[in-house]
């Protein structure tokens, strides 16, 4: 699993109301959710973000509501992955369950400016910042069960695969 993209930086405690405000939750349409992604943290984000871009954030990203619309909005906006110092628990689960790659790195946040290009190698667990290729940062490894979920394409595909295998 490899990504390379331009980063957008957000601070600590980016909550699910900032990621996708509740006023837009009267629909499950992915494109409509994407068009309001991160709106209350940065009103221009939906216009600025390009497919393959990466979100970098501080502590406790995704705190607040259980709404899966949050990782859906980020994924549907074309964001390749989110790298934060830490994630709120339900957001962490939801991201894996529906196949949005996320990584924990305590170091990256302080080392990059917005607009920098970052490469992520999920297999080796390394991040490199464009221009400083000789200095790689380690990301917290994804637990094997979560890797299985991503490899299977999310929780429900994983369950169906298991059920088919035991049938």
């Amino acid at each position, binding site marked *: 699993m490899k990504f390379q993209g331009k980063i957008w930086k957000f601070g600590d*405690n980016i*909550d699910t*109301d*900032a990621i996708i*405000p*509740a*006023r837009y*939750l*009267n*629909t*499950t349409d992915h494109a409509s959710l994407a068009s309001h992604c991160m709106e*209350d*943290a940065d*009103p221009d984000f939906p216009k600025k973000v390009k497919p393959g871009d990466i979100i970098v954030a501080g*502590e*406790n990203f995704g*705190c*607040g*509501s*259980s*709404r*899966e*619309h949050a*990782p*859906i909005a980020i994924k549907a906006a074309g964001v390749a992955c989110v790298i934060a110092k*830490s994630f*709120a*628990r*339900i957001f962490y*689960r*939801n991201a894996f*369950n*529906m196949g949005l790659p996320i990584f924990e790195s305590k170091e990256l946040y302080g080392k990059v400016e917005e607009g920098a290009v970052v490469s992520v190698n999920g297999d080796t667990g390394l991040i490199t910042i464009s221009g400083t290729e000789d200095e790689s940062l380690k990301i917290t490894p994804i*637990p094997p*069960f979560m890797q299985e979920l991503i490899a299977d394409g*999310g*929780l*429900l*595909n994983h*369950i*169906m695969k298991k059920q088919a295998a035991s049938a």
Partner: protein
Amino acid sequence: MGMTITEKILASHAGLAEVHPGMLIDASVDIALGNDITAPIAIEEFEKAGGKTVFDRDKVVLIPDHFTPNKDIDSAQQCKFVREFAHSQALTHYYEGGEVGVEHALLPEKGIVLPGDLVIGADSHTCTYGALGAFATGVGSTDLAAAMLTGKAWLKVPESMKFILYGKLNPWVSGKDLILFIIGKIGVDGALYKAMEMTGETVTALGMADRMSMANMAIEAGAKNGIFACDDITRAYVKPRAKRPWTQYASDANAAYVETIEIDCSKIEPQVAFPHLPSNTRGISGVGDIRIDQAVIGSCTNGRIEDLRVAAQVLKGRKAASHVRLLIIPATPEVYRMAMNEGLMNIFMDANAIISPPTCGPCLGGHMGILAQGERAVATTNRNFVGRMGHPGSEVYLSNPAVAAASAVLGRLAGPDELN
């Protein structure tokens, strides 16, 4: 080594003799809950995965409470989708119209969740049921879909934090103030991924409504669940409501905790969480002069009859300031009826309050009390994030019902003592 109450419930539902923090388990769920925002995605995923019938029609609970009574065409469509699914599956616990209430007040009230249960809900405040001695945690729609299909959920066993609360509470201090104080102390990620176990003489003296307010906001500290041991007060609450057997668990004396925090509750005054995090708490004596435009008394945190009684005690014979919109939202039809029969509704109407049907509406900026740019609300709800109750340029201050009521009267943040 002994086990905590959380570990015991998880072990029993995973069919294991014991579990340890960090273990990934596959656990059977007693209740899988969804609402009008989260259930539509769950139903779509359930159907995409080839699901035909839910694993148990008594255990899948769907409650349309966020945008109901429907605020617009899109939410009406969303609710219709949930309704048709619930009817086609003949779900035992599907409520709407005059039967529906705020889910986390409705489920305990109807005896749908019981001590020792393992509950997952596609709503972050599912952790409320920890007040009953259940393991209850919020998940997303895909987890709900998987549980609807298989009756199971994958869970990582959390580390437990123990809170020992002692000391007699000051006047007007409630469970809401205790949890706001705790979140202020440990921060919005102070219990990230962990179980918050509430113990101590102050806790055992609290009624169920206060315990539910506290467990409700465990998520605001990042916790996986909040939990209280089952005692006489729990049993008295559960006994007339339960329609099936239940099990009570307590932590072993030698159970392991990652951290133990002791709090002298006699030193706590009513708390207010300032924008834009539930951890920005201050005692009421230190709030300064903050003019408010709206006061909201309700929600899964503080919309129970006990909360409305406190609000009525403060509002009796008084009126909301002319520039304040005071909203009272009984959390369930039963709370509404009790408030009516006890004469509380007259007190509220005499105070110029607006009485809303049960709904989550204003808490999440859905409907029924949206704030304009620059407006400020004091609310008994659980979140004060940017844009939570409306315009991103509005502000929400979290408090208990007594403070919200007194603030409505004075038109600024204030405690009830200022009314005398």
